[in-house]
């Protein structure tokens, strides 16, 4: 899925209009852009630098610091797997291994066909229903290997 530069520019302008144009608005503006486009396009750097009175380096520094922000569009599906202790205690590591095996990718990567992006997450707040993951924003708890298999089958990931 590619988003035209016109559309990118429209979203960036909208995000800046929705927020006060001061340096502290950088995070809300980045969130607004990423909520709409799924990533922060190159086009945003100059526009934000100009509007918020920041340097491109300031903006890159913030984007690279926070794990939520990404500079590339993610795959069509986003799988975020919790790696924290409570999930590990309930078999999180075997889920990790199975996800890696079926997707044939590591964390922070997207499958070659652009189908799925895999990201780690450190706690989703569903610890009493561990292990947990989110798939395209939906939270799933008590995910055992069978349940994981169903979720991956729905995405038509080869077994």
């Amino acid at each position: 899925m590619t988003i035209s530069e016109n559309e990118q520019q429209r979203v960036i302008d909208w995000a800046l209009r929705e927020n006060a144009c001061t340096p502290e608005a950088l995070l809300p503006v980045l969130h607004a852009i990423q909520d709409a486009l799924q990533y922060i396009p190159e086009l945003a750097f100059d526009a934000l630098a100009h509007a918020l009175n920041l340097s491109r380096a300031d903006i890159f520094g913030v984007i690279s610091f926070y794990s939520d922000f990404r500079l590339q569009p993610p795959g069509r599906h986003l799988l975020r797997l919790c790696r924290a202790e409570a999930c590990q205690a309930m078999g999180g590591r075997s889920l990790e291994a199975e996800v890696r095996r079926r997707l044939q990718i590591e964390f922070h990567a997207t499958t070659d066909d652009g189908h799925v992006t895999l990201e780690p997450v450190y706690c989703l707040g569903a610890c009493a229903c561990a292990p947990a993951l989110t798939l395209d924003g939906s939270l799933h708890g008590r995910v055992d290997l069978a349940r994981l298999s169903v979720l991956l089958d729905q995405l038509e990931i080869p077994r």
Partner: protein
Amino acid sequence: MTTATVYVPGDSGAIAVGAEEVARAIVGESDSRNIAINLVRNGSRGLYWLEPMIEVVREGRRYAYGPVKTDDIAGLFDADFLRGGDHPLALGWTEDIPYLREQERLTFRRVGVVDPRSLSDFIAHDGFTGLRRALALAPSAIVDEVITSGLRGRGGAAFPTGIKWRTVAETVSVQKYVVCNADEGDSGTFADRMLMEGDPFLLIEGLTIAGIAVGATRGIIYIRSEYPHAERMLQQAIMVASEAGYLGIDILCSGRSFMLEIRRGAGAYVCGEETALLESLEGRRGQVRFKPPLPAHKGLFGQPTVVNNVISLATVPVILQRGAAFYAEFGRGRSRGTQPFQLSGNVRRGGLIEKAFGLTLGELIFDWGGGTATGNAVRAAQVGGPLGAYLPTLHFDTPLDYEAFAARSAMIGHGGVVVFDSTVDMAEMARFAMEFCAVESCGKCTPCRIGSVRGRELIDRIIAGDDVVRNIETLRDLCDTMMEASLCALGGMAPLPVLSALEYFSADFARDDMPEAAQRD
């Protein structure tokens, strides 16, 4: 016949195990049977092993069923569950379930009970009575009340809340701020999330009281991006409270004003550290600041700022409503009041247990938790999040209070307890603690940024059986440096899980070249 009310939690933990599908199935089934129902999406009672746990009203009391699956719905209707009919999933009167009955719910008294979207339900359950009392008091009297209650910061640092407030109140400035730290990043903790989703007006009440007490007219809730549902609930509650005159200019015609807004984090654990959080709010990388100056003197935009955890702020209303003496009656030693403990990991009955400080770790894990979910023996519990110590069953007699835990080189932190069974490899868990610190380090100070990476490498070598004795010695030395020289608690406390694993589970680090490789306990 009156319309029956059915409660199906809208809590995201319950949704994670199918509450949404259950709610839809109940509506579908009632439609097809032509039965009118009133569906309420309450918060969770915190009995997560029973989620989705649904409730109905019978003889004026709540009656529970769970854990409910969509396949069970037709059968529940057949059993006339809307009137509390008999069914294999029936759990009895909700309040008589021992897990709930034995708790002391002060902060969480409304969570799971009320409709979190309803201001009138909140008010019908004593909502805003703490605020009304605060508005009738002089600001210094509010601060005194909080000091007398003995409330200490529930985020983890356990600093007396009232003292922090007094510092801000006594600092002169035209603009002060109250910042709510809702960046609940510790694994094994979910009390903030449950409260924001299940009783959002309570947090608004607590924040407003704090603003009035210290003379701050602006409040900001910094919420982690992993909690989108809590953010939506708060957003809506702020709108409703503002329209009803509980927020904004001239609150309840008192002449006092308080504006509240929400800001979303972006996936950085370190932003739970108060100065990193302030940096993030100012639009920068979340790197910790040197202290002093304290945020209470120079915080957000250089102005005096109260930074409090969700639970600290949400506990203030009950202190104002019932009085400091009432609250201080709960607890033990210098740990006054109650703590919402969060029990998770490999445990049979995971959930939220609000209880006065002083019960033992073992009581929490066995009496409430019922041992492990897998049925294996309990081997360890990590208390206080990813920077908390791993305790062996030998120390499960430790009372849950701040000082007793500190005496064991451990901490209660935000009250999370994660249980592990006999299959856990503690060397792997120690490695994970260093890896986590390396991933989440803000990079400002060397002991944390470099130390965590070196720590992980050392543990890798130990696991590989490479010069184990000397590498363990070096690892202890490194931990010492990190604890003494790091700028904040991330680097300063990440060694706690590592050292406790070495101390209590040394067998897991033993490799062939060790002279007396002990057998695994």
